[in-house]
């Protein structure tokens, strides 16, 4: 029988001391500063903000440094920090149509008001490692082109004029947006709650599911109607002021996925839509989110649910990497008592099995034991 014991305090303290040392690494190499992480590992910072569900660059950078670059650990740290702060309220919904655009592309229209702006993209690079970067070469200032500021309406608004695409997702007038940080998940869930879960969901998980829809598991013929990245202003209604108070600007990535739809008993043939909106410059994540959003609208649009990406409970219950890592990683913590109990059980079952299969041998064993 296993007797419960205490112990490991010194080992734990020493392990954490060792962790701090290994985190710092070779002392002859200068220590990373948070502003270096914010500026030079910006997309990693964005991922931590997006999946940590907290917009704060310096905190995300601190989390990345503290986690030694382990993104899920960093996301976990940010999520934990969030719970220590009071909540002041819900902002007014952002207007991505008035975004200060830093990148905007459409795969459906070549010529559109505002044009195709590539911005700081990895697209069209040759994916060759750059020895000059390794050598720390100076970087040229970017070119500028002076132009009149042009309005950049969302592509969905342009498509809507022909009436062949469904409108932006509406909810009943009296619907209050759900909040998964306040209420437990319940299935089936409304699209607004699903989008909140997807926006903080694991990029790799959503990417794989989005990919699966392209490969034929819940195929839904997507086009990127538009991706736009840039700054949007936030405003909050507060009782002490007669107007919405401006909070500053956050950078977000929005993806409008447009999907061919042959029609069903519930809806006529048209283009349907999937929507992605995430913190920071996180294009892959926004696209994956939009693909998953569309796939998860299967029952709303009268499609057969045949694939994992359409299964709301499966997708949403497993998209959160903090929950996922918590449950998977808890397996390595001491389970000595549980295991002892199972060991006993398996021994007993094995003995019964052997007694059944080979009574003579079992009798022999029993005698030997006695």
């Amino acid at each position, binding site marked *: 029988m296993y007797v419960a014991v205490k112990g490991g305090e010194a080992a734990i303290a020493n392990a954490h001391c060792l962790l701090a040392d290994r985190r710092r690494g070779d002392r002859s190499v200068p220590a990373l500063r948070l502003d270096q992480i914010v500026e030079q590992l910006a997309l990693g910072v964005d991922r931590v903000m997006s999946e940590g569900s*907290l*917009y704060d660059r310096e905190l995300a950078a601190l989390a990345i440094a503290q986690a030694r670059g382990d993104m899920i650990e960093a996301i976990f740290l940010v999520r934990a920090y969030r719970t220590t702060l009071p*909540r002041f309220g819900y902002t007014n919904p952002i207007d991505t149509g008035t975004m200060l655009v830093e990148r905007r592309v459409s795969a459906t229209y070549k010529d559109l008001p505002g044009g195709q702006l590539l*911005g700081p993209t990895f697209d069209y690079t040759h994916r060759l490692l750059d020895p000059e970067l390794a050598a720390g070469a100076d970087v040229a200032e970017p070119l500028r082109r002076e132009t009149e500021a042009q309005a950049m309406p969302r592509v969905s608004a342009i498509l809507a004029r022909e009436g062949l695409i469904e409108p932006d997702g*509406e909810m009943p007038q009296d619907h209050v947006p759900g909040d998964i940080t306040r209420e437990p998940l319940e299935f089936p869930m409304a699209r607004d709650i699903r989008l909140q879960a997807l926006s903080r969901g694991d990029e790799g998980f959503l990417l794989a599911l989005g990919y699966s829809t392209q490969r034929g598991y819940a195929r839904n013929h997507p086009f990127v109607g538009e991706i736009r990245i840039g700054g949007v202003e936030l405003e909050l209604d507060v009782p002490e002021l007669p107007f919405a108070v401006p*909070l500053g600007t956050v950078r977000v990535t929005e993806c409008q996925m447009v999907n061919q739809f042959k029609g069903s008993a519930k809806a006529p043939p048209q283009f349907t839509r999937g929507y992605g909106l995430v913190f920071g410059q996180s294009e892959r994540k926004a696209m994956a989110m939009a693909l998953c959003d569309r796939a998860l609208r299967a029952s709303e649009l009268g499609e057969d649910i045949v694939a994992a990406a359409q299964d709301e409970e499966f997708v949403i219950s497993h998209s959160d990497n903090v929950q996922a890592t918590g449950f998977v990683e808890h397996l390595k913590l001491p389970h000595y008592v549980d295991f002892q109990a199972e060991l006993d059980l398996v021994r007993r079952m094995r003995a019964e099995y052997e007694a059944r299969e080979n009574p003579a041998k079992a009798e022999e064993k029993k005698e030997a034991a006695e």
Partner: protein
Amino acid sequence: MRGQEARDQAERKAAMATLAQSSGDDIVRLWNEAGLPSQAELLRGPETGLVTLRGRIGGGGAPFNVGEATVTRATVRLPSGQVGHCYALGRDKQKAKLAAIADALWQDPARRKEVETGLIAPLRAALTTAHEKRRAETAATKVDFFTMVRGED
């Protein structure tokens, strides 16, 4: 009078937006250069909390919650009685306090011009320059499509 009140509110909101978007360092530097008074009674904060950021489904549809952002707020009262507020993204407490004092000073007709010219105008100019730079850099990455001439003749 109603029109004047609305204009005042719009101007006050614009000043608060400028303060919220500016860095704490810039605010402190200009504050000292302009010699603005920083004497005020703290009524609340500065304290850091969260706001939940909302988007709209499809860009213009029903609202949904995207995630949280850190916000720091402060409320102050000047010796002359005006109460000023600040809410700004981030965790910069000194910035929130100074921005709240700036908001209170702004409401004092005798001080408004000083705050506008010494603090808000230069901050706004810096933000506009930064925006224009960013816009021009992005514009340089605009794709100019042209039709290929077919070599048939």
